[in-house]
């Protein structure tokens, strides 16, 4: 076992992991934060997206040990975040989720899209979401929700 010291959702923690464990193992199995979902476990679906030092990454293909000294933010930390609050409301209003399995990844990506493109075109949104798989919604609602959330956040 090795010790990984990182800031997880604003709290400094030291977590013991096996070297082979990934960041998704660390948050789900070692820290009981199961809001991060694992769909494929090999980087193909985007369900496990978290922010590492402020950037979205796929936690199933990031080695936990390499996160030593770094800052990780999962969906659990976004509950009281105002930007995420707005994005979540638009997801609700635009029917951007059904089963919810992909939703945390969509939200983590949505925040990054809006941060990088305050006025995202539909093309930009679709491009940025192209790696996030949703088996339920057909994506229309998700794209619409991100566009309208961006608009509201721009006005604010």
């Amino acid at each position: 076992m090795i010790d990984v010291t990182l800031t997880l959702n604003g709290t400094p923690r030291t977590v013991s992991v096996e070297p082979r464990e990934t960041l998704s193992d660390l948050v789900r199995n070692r820290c009981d934060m199961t809001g991060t979902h694992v769909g494929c476990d090999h980087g193909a679906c985007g369900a496990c997206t978290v922010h590492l030092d402020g950037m979205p990454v796929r936690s199933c293909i990031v080695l936990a040990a390499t996160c030593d000294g770094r800052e990780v933010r999962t969906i659990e930390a976004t509950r009281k975040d105002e930007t995420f609050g707005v994005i979540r409301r638009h997801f609700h209003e635009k029917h951007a989720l059904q089963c919810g399995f992909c939703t945390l990844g969509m939200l983590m990506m949505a925040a990054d899209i809006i941060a990088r493109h305050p006025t995202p075109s539909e093309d930009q949104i679709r491009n940025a979401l192209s790696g996030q798989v949703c088996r339920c919604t057909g994506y229309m609602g998700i794209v619409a929700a991100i566009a309208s959330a961006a608009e509201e956040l721009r006005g604010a």
Partner: protein
Amino acid sequence: MKSANFEYLRPTSLPDALDAANDETTFLAGGQSLMAMLNLRVTSAETMIDLSRLSELRGVNETPDAVTLGALTTHAMIEDGAVPDPSGGLMPRIASKIAYRAVRNMGTIGGSLALADPAADWPCCLLALDATVLIEGATSREEAIEDFLQDAYTTTLEAGEIIRAIRIPRNTAPWGVYKVTRKSGAFADSLAICVLGDAPRIALTGTQSRAQRLRRAESALHGDLRAAILADLADADPDADAYKRRCHLATVLAAIKEAQS
């Protein structure tokens, strides 16, 4: 699935990393290919040497003729222009179409070259730009990409050798790119890159073996181009089926057309 277990080392200097390396060790850069392969158990590691803390593999060096990018430079840094672009826009364009943003935030140019996937973007792009690879091991060497890339997943890297940086000559010539993928972010079925200038360079990947120059096409830009490309393809991807051949022909013609327009 989960990777089989391994030992983990995180050296903080290049000499320490080189000391620890041997033919039983595996280097980890961004992990965006390696971690997926480990989780799928198509590969395994005895001892993992994490390169992410080596400052020698980061940063940029600029000269009037070239820009040298550390091996740990990520696709996203190139996409965003967070590092200087020697290529006149070609590298940011290539970077922006590799995989997905979350993968580009971790994946590195050095990792992509070291892996030498026959459908990967960087080997083809760096070949078109006439880049060289700076390698550290028992000795240091600088090697042209064309010599470095040997075959699918095969380079001249010896066990324990590390790519430190990539030197890219400055390019001001017009360029064109065309990539065919099954879906956005997927590896290329065919990727062609054309860089014009005094000595035009055309590189193709998505072949069975490695990214390759199309030399007949390069010298036939104003002649019988289709015939030249088809002759090149017979060497570059001899086992290509009808779909692949058409695909390659189309990407090469489209890349040249964009460069010339």
